[in-house]
C-alpha cells in the first residue's frame, strides 16, 4: 500500500510539473474535457428548464409589454447609432489629417455562460464556445456594458474565461476624460478593481470612466472597464488608493460577447474583399447605387477589406470603419443621414480595381 501511494504521489507531482512547464498534456486535457465538461452543462440544465417553462407560460400581456419595451429600446439605440456613424466618419477623417494609423476593426460573437468556477477564490467562468468555434487563447470577452475578462483555457467546445476581478488579473486602462494611464488589478471582490501605483497628484477623481488602453496588446482599446468609486489620498502612503467598480455585470451577465480582431494577412483580406464584391455584383444584378443597397449584405466579410487593396492609408481608413457601422445597425435609414455619399465612392473604386487586376 505504501509503495502504491509513493508511485501515485510521484506520478501526480510529475504530472503537475509537466503540466505547468510544457504543453504536452494539453491534448489529453482537451480530450478529457470533451466528456467531462458536459457536467457543467448538466448542472446548468435545471435553470435552463426553468427559464424555458417561464417563457412558455408568460402571459400575453407581459409579452406585449416586453415587446413594446424592446421596440422603444431598439429605437433609442438606433438613434444613437446614427450619431455614431457620423462621429466615426469624422474620426476617420481627422485621423487621416493627422496621418495616424487606421482603427482596427473588430468583430464580435455571442457566447453563453454555462458555469462558474467552483473555487470561490478564483473568478473564472465557463462559456459555450471553444477552439472549434475559433476562440483563441487570450481573447477578450465583453458583456453589454463593458470588458469582462479574457480566455485562459481552451477546450474543444468550451473555454474558461478569467474575469477582470481575479486576483491574478490586471489590465492596462486609461481615464476616458484625460487619457491618464494606469493598471487596474483585480482584488478578488467581484465589485472592486484597484488602480496600482497612481501618483498622489494624478488627475483622477470619483466617477471617472476607465477604458481599456490597448497597451498590453491583449485587449482592444476603448472598451469601458470600470468607473472610479473612490480616490483616497493618504499622506502615509506613497501612492493614491484608487478603487473602481467594473462596468460589466461580472457576476450577473449570462450572454457574453467574444471579440475577434481581424488577424488575416493583407492578401487574404484583399482576396476576400474581391470575392465579396463579386458576390455582390451577381447578387443584385445592376445596382448602380453601391453606397446604400449592397453594403449591409456584404458586411460580414468586407469590413476591413479595402484597407489592404491600396498601400495608402487614407482610403483604407474609410473602408475600414464605415461599413462596420452600416453592418452593426443594418438600417438603411442611417446611410442617407450621414456624410457617406462623399466617402463611399472614394473607398469603393480601389477594391473594384483590385478585383479586375487579379
Amino acid at each position, binding site marked *: *500500500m505504501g509503495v*502504491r*501511494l509513493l508511485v*501515485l*504521489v510521484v*506520478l*501526480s*507531482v*510529475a*504530472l*503537475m510539473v*509537466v*503540466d*505547468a512547464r510544457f504543453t504536452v*498534456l494539453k491534448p*489529453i*486535457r482537451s480530450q*478529457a*474535457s470533451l466528456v*467531462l*465538461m458536459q*457536467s*457543467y452543462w*448538466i*448542472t*446548468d440544465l435545471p*435553470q435552463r428548464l426553468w427559464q424555458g417553462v417561464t417563457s412558455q407560460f408568460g402571459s400575453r400581456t407581459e409579452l406585449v409589454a416586453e415587446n413594446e419595451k424592446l421596440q422603444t429600446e431598439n429605437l433609442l439605440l438606433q438613434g444613437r447609432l446614427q450619431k455614431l456613424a457620423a462621429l466615426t466618419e469624422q474620426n476617420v477623417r481627422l485621423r487621416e489629417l493627422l496621418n495616424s494609423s487606421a482603427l482596427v476593426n473588430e468583430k464580435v460573437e455571442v457566447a453563453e455562460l454555462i*458555469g*462558474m*468556477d*467552483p*473555487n*470561490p*477564490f*478564483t473568478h*473564472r467562468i465557463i462559456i459555450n464556445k471553444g477552439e472549434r468555434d475559433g476562440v483563441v487563447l487570450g481573447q477578450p470577452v465583453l458583456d453589454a456594458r463593458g470588458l469582462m475578462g479574457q480566455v485562459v*483555457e481552451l477546450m474543444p467546445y468550451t473555454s*474558461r474565461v478569467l474575469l477582470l476581478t481575479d*486576483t*491574478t488579473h490586471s489590465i492596462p486602462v486609461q481615464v476616458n476624460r484625460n487619457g491618464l494611464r494606469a493598471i487596474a488589478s483585480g482584488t*478578488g471582490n467581484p465589485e472592486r478593481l484597484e488602480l496600482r501605483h497612481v501618483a498622489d497628484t494624478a488627475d483622477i477623481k470619483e466617477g471617472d470612466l476607465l477604458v481599456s488602453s490597448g497597451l498590453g496588446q491583449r485587449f482592444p482599446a476603448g472598451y469601458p472597464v470600470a468607473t472610479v468609486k473612490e480616490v483616497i489620498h493618504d499622506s502615509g502612503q506613497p501612492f493614491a488608493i484608487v478603487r473602481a467598480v467594473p462596468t460589466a455585470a461580472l*457576476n450577473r451577465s449570462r450572454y457574453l460577447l467574444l471579440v475577434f480582431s481581424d488577424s488575416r494577412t493583407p492578401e487574404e483580406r484583399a482576396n476576400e474583399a474581391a470575392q465579396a464584391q463579386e458576390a455582390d455584383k451577381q447578387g443584385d444584378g445592376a445596382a448602380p447605387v453601391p453606397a446604400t443597397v449592397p453594403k449591409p449584405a456584404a458586411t460580414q466579410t468586407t469590413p476591413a477589406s479595402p484597407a489592404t487593396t491600396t498601400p495608402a492609408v487614407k482610403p483604407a481608413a474609410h473602408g475600414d470603419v464605415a461599413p462596420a457601422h452600416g453592418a452593426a445597425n443594418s438600417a438603411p435609414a442611417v446611410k442617407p443621414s450621414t456624410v457617406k455619399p462623399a466617402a463611399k465612392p472614394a473607398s469603393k473604386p480601389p477594391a473594384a480595381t483590385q478585383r479586375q487586376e487579379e
Partner: protein
Amino acid sequence: MAGASLSRNGWIVWLTFSIGLLLSVSPLPQFMEILRPLWLALLLAFWSLYLPHKIGMVTAFLLGLAEDVLYGTLLGQSALILTLITFLVLSLQQRLRMFPMWQQSLVILVIFGLAQLVQLWLSALTGNRQPTLALVLPALVSALLWPWVSFGLRGLRRRYKIN
C-alpha cells in the same frame, strides 16, 4: 484483489462517483460557494472503507484527474489530494469501521483538513494563494455531512448488495 470474488453492481459505485462530480461543479449561491463539501472525497472515503478490495488509491487518482480537468487546475493536483485522503482512510480502515459515527466524523474532519492544507500549499505554489484559511471550512462541512452520506450509501449498498 477483486479478481476471484464475485463483484456485483459495481456500476452503482461509479454512478455515485459521477453524481459526485456533478455535485462538485453544481452552481451554488455566492456565500455557500466557500462551504462546498468535498463530495468526491466523501464518496471515496466511504467506498474505500467498505469496498477496499475494489476502490483504492488508483480510483482516487483517476477521479482526481477528472476533477482537475473540470476545475482547470494543474493536472495532478486534486489527484494528489484524493490519493492522500484515500491512503489515510485505508490505513485507518480497521479502526474506522469500529468507531461510532461521531468519532468517524472527527477522524474524517482531521483527514480532510490535512488534505485541504496540502491543497492550500499546492495552490500557493501555482500562484493562487488564498488569502484566508477559510478553505478548511469545506472539511468541516464534509465532516458534518459524513453521517448522512455514510448512512445513505450504506442503505444503497445493502439494497443492491454491492460487493
